[in-house]
């Protein structure tokens, strides 16, 4: 068939027969990158064999930075310029960061998202996260000896709201990563477990990380991972156990930690003591403070009594999610523990008791999320056998709009499967009203003041009518990454307005473009080189996709249609050899436009085939 021979002689038709796609667990305390190699998903170690990269960034003199273990080691000595647990700041204003007064940073309270002043200038949490992601990207490129990673799946806590997801995606783009998908951490863990144990049925994933807690219920059926319900607390994790222990220890000997150094030092010591208590019945919390050495003995029983309220908080959330899903603990076939904090014996026994069965712990709780993300990345990149797994995730929090009197009209309910879209009609309340202000909020409470504000926009140019005559249809669309787009349309006149819900403080596309230009992610090359490389990768991607579509469903096309698409592909390939990135972009666009009808026909065939052999008559 002609379409198999369209490449130029002497050139491989498939320069990247296998695309390198990675899964990244961007965690509060540590981050990992994993990929499928030789059919096995595994975490990629650094050049010293360490898989875990501590999520710590230290800004040094002269614009240099240290990332990971080196930064972590300096956190007490250089607390103002060493950012740890930055995930807790993602998409948050200062007032929303619990316990920020105890954190040793010079915060800048900017509208929307807080920033930190360092010796290298003001850094947003998005930029700090991008440093971590860029380090992991570099590690992956080195591991595969590749100069370009095809794409990445980044995990986020299931309970992250729209603002936090958007901030995470921005950070990935800033780090020069092509985001294939944001997926929820518990879902990623379930993928790793499900494939490992070949399980079917209902599973609970209890994920207690460094800074976040998630509980998800998933149903596994023949490779489909369906999230039934999810809940959690985006500000509850191992860090809280550390700070309770630290405060207790200081109080026990009537000491105080006032300076940034002392606060950091006592937290580091508390974390070490907590970890020691996982294996031992007692230990000593010790560190050096400005006023002299601190040394406090602590038993596991004391530690557990101290932190019981935190564990209990997670149990309440677990029960609530079960009720939400109208399920009981007996419906659950297995409980999976994820996150380093689930190593604590008190957590394990509390979870086991609640579900009436011992939790599964046969995979490394630190690595399981990254491994699951890598499996999904491999599949999204088109490397895996078709249809191996499918993730059907949900939105964690309801989305709505402000109505009269500061009340919330919910439009998309929490635990709706994504992608989803829902429309609701509103009207004007004054005669001659020509504009309508829309305020988009996220949360479960009835009052706007108790929910999180996501965005405000206006629909203008409504023709004057009597109150109540206009019909304004507001549509919420949540994509497969869990990100929201809202549009409004006056039905009679056709006047429209739309907004992609970028949190008001979020980085605008222009900001990201500027930062990329400034060489944030790749100090070594200039904008033109980068634009050309991106255009070529796009062209390559599009040609490959078209070719595999033709191979699968070419029979849907007439000869003329087939030839037209072949010609567009050849054009794209030819132009991609050149150096004009604009011309390449234009060719890719033309190819996309020229294959649109074909794509629609393929989709139609796929959907028909899905239910083939399951027709009405057979039931």
């Amino acid at each position, binding site marked *: 068939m002609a379409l198999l021979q369209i490449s130029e002689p002497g050139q491989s038709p498939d320069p990247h027969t296998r*695309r390198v796609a990675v899964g990244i667990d961007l965690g509060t305390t540590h981050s990992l990158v994993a990929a499928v190699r030789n059919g096995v998903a595994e975490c990629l170690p650094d050049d010293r064999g360490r898989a875990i990269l501590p999520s710590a960034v230290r800004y040094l003199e002269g614009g240099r930075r240290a990332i990971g273990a080196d930064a972590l080691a300096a956190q007490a000595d250089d607390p103002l310029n060493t950012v740890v647990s930055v995930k807790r700041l993602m998409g948050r204003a200062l007032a929303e960061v619990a316990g920020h007064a105890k954190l040793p940073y010079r915060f800048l309270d900017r509208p929307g998202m807080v920033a930190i002043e360092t010796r290298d200038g003001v850094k947003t949490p998005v930029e700090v996260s991008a440093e971590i992601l860029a380090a992991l990207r570099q590690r992956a490129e080195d591991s595969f000896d590749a100069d370009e990673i095809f*794409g990445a799946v980044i995990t986020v806590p299931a309970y992250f709201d729209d603002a936090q997801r958007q901030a995470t995606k921005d950070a990935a783009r800033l780090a020069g990563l092509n985001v*294939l*998908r944001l997926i929820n951490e518990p879902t990623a863990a379930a993928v790793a477990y499900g494939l490992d144990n070949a399980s079917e049925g209902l599973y609970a994933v209890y994920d207690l990380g460094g800074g976040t807690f998630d509980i998800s219920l998933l149903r596994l*059926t*023949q490779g*489909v991972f*369906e999230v039934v319900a999810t809940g959690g607390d985006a500000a509850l994790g191992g860090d809280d156990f550390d700070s309770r222990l630290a405060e207790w220890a200081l109080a026990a000997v009537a000491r105080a930690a006032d300076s940034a150094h002392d606060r950091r030092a006592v937290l580091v010591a508390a974390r070490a003591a907590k970890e020691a208590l996982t294996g031992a019945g007692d230990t000593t919390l010790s560190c050096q403070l400005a006023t002299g050495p601190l040394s406090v003995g602590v038993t596991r029983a004391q530690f557990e009594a101290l932190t019981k309220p935190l564990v209990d908080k997670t149990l*309440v959330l677990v*029960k*609530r999610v079960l*009720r939400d899903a109208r399920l009981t603990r007996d419906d659950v076939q297995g409980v999976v523990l994820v996150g380093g904090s689930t190593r604590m014996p008190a957590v394990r026994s509390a979870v086991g008791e609640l579900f009436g069965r011992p939790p599964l712990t046969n995979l490394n709780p630190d690595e399981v999320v990254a491994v699951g993300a890598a499996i*999904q990345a491999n*599949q*999204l*990149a*088109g490397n895996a056998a078709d*249809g191996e797994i*499918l*993730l*059907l995730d949900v939105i964690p929090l309801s989305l709505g709009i402000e109505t009269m009197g500061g009340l919330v009209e919910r439009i998309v309910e929490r635990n*709706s*499967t*994504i*992608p*989803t*879209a*829902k429309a609701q009609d509103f009207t004007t309340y004054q005669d001659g009203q020509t504009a309508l202000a829309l305020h988009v909020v996220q949360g479960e409470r009835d009052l706007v003041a108790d929910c999180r504000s996501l965005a405000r926009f206006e629909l203008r140019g409504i023709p004057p009518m009597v109150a109540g005559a206009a019909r304004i249809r507001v549509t919420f*669309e949540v*994509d*497969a990454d869990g990100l929201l787009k809202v549009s409004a349309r006056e039905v009679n006149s056709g006047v429209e307005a739309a907004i992609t819900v970028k949190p008001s403080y979020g980085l605008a596309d222009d900001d990201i473009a500027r930062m990329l230009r400034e060489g944030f992610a790749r100090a070594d090359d200039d904008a033109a080189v980068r634009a050309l490389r991106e255009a070529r990768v796009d062209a390559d*991607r*599009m040609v*490959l*996709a*078209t070719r595999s*579509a033709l191979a699968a469903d070419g029979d849907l096309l007439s000869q003329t249609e087939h030839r037209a698409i072949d010609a567009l592909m050849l054009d794209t390939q030819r132009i991609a050899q050149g150096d004009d990135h604009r011309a390449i972009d234009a060719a890719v666009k033309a190819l*996309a*436009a020229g*294959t*649109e009808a074909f*794509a*629609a026909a393929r*989709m*139609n065939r*796929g*959907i*028909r*085939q*899905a*239910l083939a052999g*399951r*027709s*009405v008559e057979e*039931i």
Partner: protein
Amino acid sequence: MKLDDNDFVLFGLPERFAIDRADLDARWRRLQASAHPDRFAADGAAAQRLAMQWSVRINEAYRRLREPLARGAYLCELRGAPIAAHSNTAMPGDFLMQQMAWREALDDADSDADLAVLDVEVRAAEADLLAQLAALLDDQSTPALAAERVRALMFIQRFRAALAERIDALQD
């Protein structure tokens, strides 16, 4: 297959109220397996957009077919008896009396046991109405009467939400 085909056509099911939930779930998973954007992640923006539209449509239909109340309302509409919940609020007197009695019982309830008793009663009333709805739609083909049952069920659904909130508040 078109995006604006009705939910039953999309899922290859007969237009009936009675539904086999396990079969519906299986159909939903199969449809998503063929249309979800993840299946087209490497295929460019146009394919992604198309997949998103279909995937959204499949989820919308699934949500409606899955919930008995939504399914009943949808069938009434398909058969020419729209629910018109906003304009048509007339309910039989004895039904409204019962609603008021329940509201009072909810206000007076101050223990798990009180709420559980109420919960059982409301569930039974709901099950009874759903059985009537099934008969009116599938056996007697009387959509206007069926729409009345749907409106009654909407009252009960709102009441159950209030009841669930109280139960939640006591259990946390």
